[in-house]
């Protein structure tokens, strides 16, 4: 685990570097009389990002300092404080200090929070004065957390009350050297001065990674896509040649396509990061959340080497955080309850990732009480949802994804506000993923997220309607089968097909996409059974063309959203093919769910 933390730390440090650089440039390049709310917002955001990350890793010194910086910038943003050159100077000094402190953390050194006390005090001077008169400052002395009795104007001795202080005396300002009250710490820490001065050169030499704008990777992908198309043009040419030349041509082309595939894979791998980048931050979360809820929870992490697209990692943090908090808050019982039930006092959360085909599965399993079926149904009734006591477990569990749904009796600090699981579900669906719940009373609950490896590439099934080829994401296809005329019925105007004991509403892709495919008999077509979050629909197409990996291209970049289409791709021959938005497509069919699950009717046909 520690290694993964280390990796994640590196990301944080790299980000800090960027944010600090950004703040410094902003501060340096903006004349004081040209400071706009935008400038301050920019600074605020950078400080906030550093604060957020440092808080997660427990880098309290960084959090402490960025917190007051944030407060200062917030006041400036609200117009309570006017930015002055003095404030800018103080902020710049704070940036230097942040760099230094972050460098210490980066080298794995222990850092006391008091190390930044001086800078905090310097900033708080501005926060607590209503008048710019510096003499007034002594009136506002009890400002830092380390209850000093005596704060000089730029008191470097701020944290001196702290026991650890001699080791970390902030000696970087000339004032501190000339402060008579504390000669001892200064002497003791003089070797530290040298060390500190060396720090700058040390910390810059440590990164072995570069941060690359993802658009650069995208443009490489684009160019590769172009190469693939050129290659298929060449292949068409090759097919026109004959004799021994044709054979050589063919061989050379086979080589080319092999190399292209390899290149495509390695380009994609640039975007991939191990999920350890994601998982490593949850150790802290579990610890904090558990102690807040007075529970004992151990987090077990498996499969951290599984790789997933960087953008996915960014978008998965929030939903996973939420599920984990929920698991601790609602799933795992209090130690007393657990012992009473004959379980170990400490609950276990298993967070596991693995690859399955072209999907990444992330599972979160707790050994808690499991979802409470009765409670969920009761709550759903209160909310006026259509439920029945006979609903299968699977459908009951899905209710917790409804907006505003929460079974917690008390809204806690951690979760239970009812703004959660629906957002989690939507987040996962935005990533073209699905989320499933299994739960067994007193044994625990398992959340399973099935996600594509990347958003840039999609495993798709190409289907044909008329002359046009469409792509259906493979993840949303349950199966496909040939229609048999006698299994097609009608419910009102809606044709349905009986398959595996269920009636599925039939949706004609040709009709949806405005294509006049020849009025053919239903039974000539092929049904692709689609699984969307709310319903399953039998999509009627003319033909299946084949499975392939496709590069996802945005339609919105140069155009607008088109109904039933999520994006587009470029096929091997250079033509554009549309990727179907399965969620949207299935919403076009509205059929009362009872009809689809009518067991009586189904037995009639058997």
């Amino acid at each position, binding site marked *: 685990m520690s290694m993964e933390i280390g990796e994640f730390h590196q990301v944080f440090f790299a980000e800090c570097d960027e944010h600090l650089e950004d703040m410094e440039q902003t501060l340096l390049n903006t004349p004081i009389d040209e400071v706009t709310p935008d400038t301050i917002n920019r600074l605020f955001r950078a400080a906030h990002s550093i604060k957020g990350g440092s808080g997660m890793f427990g880098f309290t010194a960084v959090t402490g300092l960025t917190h007051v910086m944030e407060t200062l910038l917030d006041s400036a943003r609200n117009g309570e404080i006017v930015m002055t050159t003095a404030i800018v100077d103080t902020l710049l000094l704070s940036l230097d200090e942040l760099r230094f402190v972050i460098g210490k953390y980066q080298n794995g050194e222990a850092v006391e929070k008091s190390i930044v006390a001086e800078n905090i005090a310097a900033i708080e001077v501005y926060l607590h004065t209503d008048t710019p008169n510096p003499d007034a400052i002594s009136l506002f002395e009890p400002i830092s957390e380390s209850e000093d009795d005596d704060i000089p104007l730029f008191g470097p001795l701020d944290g001196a009350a702290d026991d650890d202080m001699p080791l970390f005396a902030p000696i970087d300002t000339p004032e501190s050297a000339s402060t008579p009250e504390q000669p001892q710490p200064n002497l003791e820490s003089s070797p530290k001065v040298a060390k500190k001065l060396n720090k700058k050169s040390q910390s810059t030499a440590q990164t072995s990674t570069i941060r690359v704008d993802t658009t650069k990777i995208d443009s490489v992908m*684009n*160019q590769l*896509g*172009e190469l693939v198309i050129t290659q298929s043009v060449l292949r068409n040419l090759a097919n026109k040649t004959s004799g021994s030349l044709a054979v050589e041509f063919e061989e050379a082309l086979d080589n080319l396509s092999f190399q292209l595939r390899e290149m495509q894979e390695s380009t994609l791998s640039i975007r991939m990061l191990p999920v350890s980048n994601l998982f490593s931050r949850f150790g802290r979360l579990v610890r904090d959340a558990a102690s807040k809820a007075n529970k004992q929870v151990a987090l077990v992490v498996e499969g951290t080497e599984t790789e997933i697209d960087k953008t996915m990692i960014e978008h998965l943090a929030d939903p996973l955080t939420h599920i984990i908090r929920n698991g601790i808050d609602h799933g795992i019982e209090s130690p007393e309850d657990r012992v009473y039930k004959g379980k170990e006092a400490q609950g276990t959360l298993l967070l596991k990732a693995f690859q399955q085909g072209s999907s990444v599965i992330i599972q979160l399993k707790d050994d808690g009480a499991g979802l409470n079926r009765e409670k969920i149904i009761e709550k759903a009734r209160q909310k006026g949802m259509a439920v029945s006591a006979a609903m299968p477990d699977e459908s009951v569990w899905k209710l917790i994804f409804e907006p505003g749904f929460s079974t917690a009796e008390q809204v806690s600090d951690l979760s239970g506000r009812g703004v959660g699981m629906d957002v989690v579900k939507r987040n996962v669906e935005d990533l073209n993923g699905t989320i499933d719940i299994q739960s067994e009373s007193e044994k625990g609950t398992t959340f399973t997220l099935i996600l594509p490896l990347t958003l840039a590439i999609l495993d798709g099934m190409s289907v044909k309607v008329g002359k*046009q080829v469409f792509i259906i994401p493979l993840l949303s296809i349950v199966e496909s089968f040939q229609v048999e005329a006698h299994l097609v019925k009608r419910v009102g105007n809606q044709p349905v097909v009986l398959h595996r004991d269920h009636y599925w509403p039939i949706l004609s892709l040709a009709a*949806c*996409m*405005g*294509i006049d495919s020849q009025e053919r008999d239903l039974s000539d077509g092929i049904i692709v059974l689609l699984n969307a979050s709310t319903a399953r629909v039998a999509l009627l197409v003319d033909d299946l063309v084949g499975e392939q990996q496709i590069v996802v*291209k*945005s*339609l*919105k*970049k*140069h*155009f*607008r*959203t*088109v*109904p*039933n*289409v999520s994006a*587009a791709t*470029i096929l091997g021959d*250079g*033509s*554009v*093919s*549309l990727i179907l938005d399965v969620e949207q497509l299935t919403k076009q069919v509205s059929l009362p769910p009872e009809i689809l699950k009518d067991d009586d009717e189904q037995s009639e046909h058997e």
Partner: protein
Amino acid sequence: MSNQNTNEALLLEYLTFRLGEETYGLDIMAVKEIRGYEKGTKLANVPEFVLGVVNLRGDIVPIVDLRIRFNVGKPIYDEFTIVIMLNINERFVGIVVDEVCDVIKVDSETIKPAPQFGAVFDMEYLEGLVTVEDIMVILVNIQALVTSDTFALIDKNNEEQERPQ
């Protein structure tokens, strides 16, 4: 147009094209390239004048037929049909017109007010009128025209949609 103080007149370059009976000119800086027409991928539930989308070196670009949109000329597609690829604020769009004619240099001082009638476009999209070699050229503000609601090429409240993400 009002810079009488400058001795050198401002020379503007326009690409001229024919649409119906009239000749129009559009700012050449908005033109990305000119290419032959290829049948794009048809889209459903879009206006008729949106012919479809094509692959422009990895970008998915919509093609609109101004002839259909403004109900002039004959929408014929053959080997002579030309698409003007525009780059408008980094959004690409291809437009199909009756004929692409020439690139003209226009002295900004010679631009006269746009005609009140005769053009297929609304007055608000016209920049003015010039006469080049006895041909009257109506200058079109192509940027305003293509991004206008009449084309619906851009999601409405596009910005609001993208902000929360």
